[in-house]
């Protein structure tokens, strides 16, 4: 079946399935810890639905069946018929696993037969007969129907009761006899018990006024009950009394009793399209001739429909006639097409006005001859304030808006008016501002087709819209690498171009030629001028090309890096499964803090983190009973967090379990000949703990699915070492353990604030910068000998960046003001003085030359454009330098040079 499928389609299937599976998995794992909302359930549903569609495209029946079965279960969950309980979550997670397996089998060219057992479980769950009574009322529809909704037994009981009682009541009424009071009371009692009081009153009235019309009201009320229940429970009863009802409808049609006709038609012809039309024609604004015709057409249609079965869908002809009737109602009372065109030309949705009533339609019709424009006027009106009515009165009378809506604009409740006026925006605002009783005008916007945050503009202008905006494309990493290679070559070409343009000998030669031409060869002067002009143009073009290449370079840098969140999002499912397998209760928290890393680094980090998390849960976290005995909460906490410290990324995996049992590790290390008893006596606890990284080392008593084989932690150490990093263990016996990974930031991308010292560009990590201020020279004061400025009523110590980092001084300042980057780190704030603030940029932090790698305050280097080196500030080091400077004063640049630092 799939052998003939285009490999491209299979690749697309594999790509998309993995995305849908990942997003569904995230939601399901979250559902275990918290109650998820309708949006999440819809996302789950869509994910399985999409996988089903994708599988169908390539004829992958096993995957399609599985996705379909899961989708059916989710359909019940979405419609409130089944709670998303643990059993459902587990089955859905298993389905995701099965789909992952199906995907990899497909890619590997191995057949996938499907998981029949899982499919059977899902199908059993999706069977409506198997739907259990929900155990979580908070997820059910509104009370009072919630209990009944899921209680198939009660509903069946009610259906049986109706079948038993209603035909007798109907028969009595048909004979003109009083129905037995006991029968009615039985129904009333049952309905009161399930808190559905709607049919109770007509039923009680039926005892007093036994008539067909009251009986129909009772049936109508009961039919609502079954409609809400999506149950056809009334059908058997109606079949029994149908002849009586048909007879009553024919009589009502003959006599023109339209309210009875409507009720009877709803009972007998539930699918008739005339219900909607019938309810509209009694309205005041329906013209008399149209009303008469509408009744006539409807009566004929109902008589014709009565000939069919009660559940027969309406005939196509009947439906068409009803639609035509509705359209005629709309057309006779709606605005003319010319007015609709005027609205459409101003991007105001004309369909909004099509059914906005005859009064408005007449006003819109007059717009064709009037000169003016549409404006949206917004007022800040406190909800339900006493001033509202007065405001509304003034606006309604003086401004007569076409429409008025209450809307939230930027989180503030506003009254938005659509006004047609020949005044300008400013004049409208001025006139409104002059009315004392009116509230503040928030905005006046002319509806002239421009983009903007306006309430009444609904139409998206297609012409000129950015094609493909919001569309994403997949790009293979290899293609990206090729592109970076080409970009590198382009840099090389640009450097040569730059060298040619900036070659000082060319202008000198041109000047010499020009002088010679003036003196000795005037006929060549024009040609020499042409060459000089071309050289100048070339310089301009080179500068522009240089700028554009810099932009392209910076933009493309972001393509290779991936948020650490992408990696962390793989863990919740694994943590959940491991916790379930080991009988532990674990709350997992992942905090990537916006850090992004190179894709290659991400892959090398994946396994170490996975192993360490498993290790924490399996060995570190105690079973709930043990935790309770120790006075700890039954649910353990495992946190994985990442942050940048200096030129390293630090990732911590922390748990609040029992910590590493040092004695047992030592015992095992000695037993495995990793260390002698004599040597062991000299080791610190930290050194002993590191034996867990030895290949094959495990203190577990038994091998489990998750750990105990002694493989894992050594892999973690190998991978982190490959990245040039290290792993520290912070062990607190009885309280928990923390694995701290430090990885050089060699390939990490960070958001930076770029600044200039005058001769050197520097970058401050975004997370360090709290604000940027301009300080006047006379704003600097000496506080205890420290240069400081007053900022937000507090003194901020000021340091020159060139002094802190020992950089050569830049050119002297021309004006008196200077820029200060306010840095915050570990609760301390300092102001760092720079010559200029440039902009924000995402920079690729590169490895530093060993000669500068040890310098404090410098966390790395980067480049912008083709060759501009940027020094990346290390906040830790910078603050250490600032503290040192505040205490000891600063060493001069000359001293640092003398010390061989530069």
């Amino acid at each position: 079946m799939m052998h003939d499928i285009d490999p491209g389609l299979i690749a697309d299937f594999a790509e998309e399935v993995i995305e849908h599976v990942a997003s569904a998995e995230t939601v399901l794992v979250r559902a275990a810890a918290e109650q998820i909302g309708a949006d999440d359930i819809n996302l789950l549903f869509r994910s399985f639905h999409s996988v089903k569609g994708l599988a169908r495209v390539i004829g992958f029946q096993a995957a399609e069946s599985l996705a379909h079965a899961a989708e059916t279960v989710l359909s019940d969950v979405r419609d409130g018929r089944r709670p998303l309980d643990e059993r459902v979550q587990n089955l859905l997670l298993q389905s995701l696993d099965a789909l992952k397996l199906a995907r990899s089998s497909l890619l590997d060219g191995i057949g996938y037969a499907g998981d029949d057992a899982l499919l059977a479980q899902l199908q059993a769950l999706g069977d409506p007969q198997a739907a259990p009574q929900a155990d979580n009322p908070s997820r059910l529809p509104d009370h009072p129907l919630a209990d009944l909704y899921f209680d198939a037994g009660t509903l069946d009981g009610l259906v049986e009761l109706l079948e038993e009682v209603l035909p007798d009541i109907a028969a009595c009424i048909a004979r003109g006899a009083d129905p037995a009071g006991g029968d009615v009371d039985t129904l009333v009692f049952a309905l009161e018990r399930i808190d559905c009081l709607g049919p109770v009153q007509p039923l009680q009235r039926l005892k007093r006024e036994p008539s067909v019309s009251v009986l129909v009201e009772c049936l109508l009320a009961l039919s609502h009950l079954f409609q809400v229940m999506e149950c056809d429970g009334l059908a058997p009863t109606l079949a029994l009394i149908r002849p009586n009802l048909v007879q009553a409808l024919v009589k009502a049609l003959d006599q023109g009793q339209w309210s009875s006709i409507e009720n009877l038609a709803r009972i007998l012809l539930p699918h008739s399209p005339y219900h909607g039309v019938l309810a509209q024609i009694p309205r005041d604004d329906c013209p008399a001739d149209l009303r008469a015709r509408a009744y006539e057409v409807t009566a004929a249609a109902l008589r014709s429909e009565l000939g069919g079965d009660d559940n027969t869908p309406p005939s196509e002809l009947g439906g068409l006639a009803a639609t035509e009737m509705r359209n005629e109602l709309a057309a006779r009372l709606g605005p003319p097409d010319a007015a609709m065109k005027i609205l459409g030309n101003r991007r105001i949705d004309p369909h909004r006005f099509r059914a906005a009533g005859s009064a408005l339609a007449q006003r819109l019709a007059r717009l064709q001859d009037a000169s003016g424009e549409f404006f949206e006027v917004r007022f800040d009106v406190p909800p339900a304030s006493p001033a509202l009515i007065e405001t509304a009165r003034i606006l309604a009378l003086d401004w007569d808006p076409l429409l008025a809506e209450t809307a939230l604009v930027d989180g503030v409740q506003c009254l938005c008016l659509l006004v047609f006026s020949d005044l300008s925006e400013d004049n409208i605002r001025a006139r409104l501002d002059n009315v004392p009783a009116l509230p503040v005008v928030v905005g006046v916007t002319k509806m002239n087709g421009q983009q903007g945050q306006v309430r009444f503009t609904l139409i998206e202008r297609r012409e000129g819209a950015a094609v493909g905006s919001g569309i994403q494309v997949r790009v293979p990493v290899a293609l990206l690498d090729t592109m970076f290679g080409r970009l590198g070559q382009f840099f090389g070409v640009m450097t040569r171009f730059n060298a040619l343009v900036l070659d000082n000998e060319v202008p000198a030669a041109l000047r010499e030629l020009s002088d010679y031409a003036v003196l000795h060869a005037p006929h060549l002067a024009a040609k020499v001028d042409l060459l000089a002009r071309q050289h100048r143009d070339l310089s301009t073009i080179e500068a522009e090309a240089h700028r554009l290449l810099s932009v392209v370079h910076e933009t493309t840098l972001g393509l290779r890096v991936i948020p650490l969140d992408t990696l962390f999002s793989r863990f919740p499912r694994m943590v959940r499964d491991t916790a379930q397998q080991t009988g532990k209760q674990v709350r997992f928290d992942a905090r990537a803090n916006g850090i992004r890393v190179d894709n290659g680094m991400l892959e090398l980090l994946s396994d170490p983190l996975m192993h360490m998390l498993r290790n924490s849960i399996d060995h570190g976290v105690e079973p709930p009973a043990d935790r309770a005995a120790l006075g700890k909460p039954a649910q353990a906490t495992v946190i994985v967090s990442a942050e940048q410290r200096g030129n390293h990324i630090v990732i911590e995996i922390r748990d609040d379990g029992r910590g590493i049992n040092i004695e047992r590790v030592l015992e095992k290390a000695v037993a495995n000949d990793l260390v002698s008893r004599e040597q062991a006596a000299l080791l610190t606890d930290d050194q002993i703990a590191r034996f867990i990284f030895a290949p094959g080392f495990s203190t577990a008593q038994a091998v489990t699915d998750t750990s105990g084989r002694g493989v894992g932690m050594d892999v973690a150490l190998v991978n982190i070492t490959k990245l040039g990093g290290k792993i520290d263990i912070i062990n607190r016996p009885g309280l928990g353990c923390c694995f701290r990974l430090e990885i050089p930031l060699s390939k990490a991308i960070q958001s930076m604030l770029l600044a200039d010292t005058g001769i050197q560009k520097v970058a401050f990590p975004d997370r360090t910068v709290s604000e940027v201020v301009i300080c006047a020279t006379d704003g600097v004061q000496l506080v205890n000998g420290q240069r400081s400025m007053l900022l937000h009523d507090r003194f901020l110590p000021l340091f020159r960046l060139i002094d802190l980092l020992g950089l050569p001084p830049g050119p002297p300042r021309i004006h008196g003001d200077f820029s200060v980057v306010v840095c915050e780190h570990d609760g301390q704030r300092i102001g760092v003085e720079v010559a200029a603030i440039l902009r924000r940029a995402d920079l690729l932090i590169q490895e530093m030359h060993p000669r500068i790698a040890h310098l404090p305050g410098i966390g790395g280097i980067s480049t912008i454009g083709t060759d501009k080196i940027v020094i990346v500030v290390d906040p830790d080091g910078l603050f250490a330098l600032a503290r040192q400077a505040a205490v000891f004063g600063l060493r001069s640049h000359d001293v640092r040079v003398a010390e061989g630092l530069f």
Partner: protein
Amino acid sequence: MTRPPVGLVLITADTTFATLFRHALETREDLVVHDAVIPDQALETVRRHGPAHVVVDADGQAVANVVRLCRKLLLVRPVGVVLTGAYLGLGSAVLTHILEAVPARSVMKPGGCAGLALADETTAASFADALVRALGCGTEAA
């Protein structure tokens, strides 16, 4: 002998319309507005007050939600349902859809979703009259 006023509950998410609706009906002796509440509080409020009629503001709500709300209201109490909205003119597709699903009557809001024109006494009076006629849905219109 004067008839007791007909009790109403307004269900709307628009506080401006709620204010103006109450204002428009405050001088009527034949109508009394028990409460004006948001859709989430509709069932409980109708159960508590047991009004004869419920006015449901269809603006700003999904059509399916309006239908669902109306059906539930009809179960909780034997109320008459009147739909109101700025775009529920005769022949409106939305109105037709709702009326095909639930027995109800409808009145137009004057001047957009907020019903701004209800601040004007004349408009308010004609709106109230139209509402009264819609409430009397048991009477023959033809």
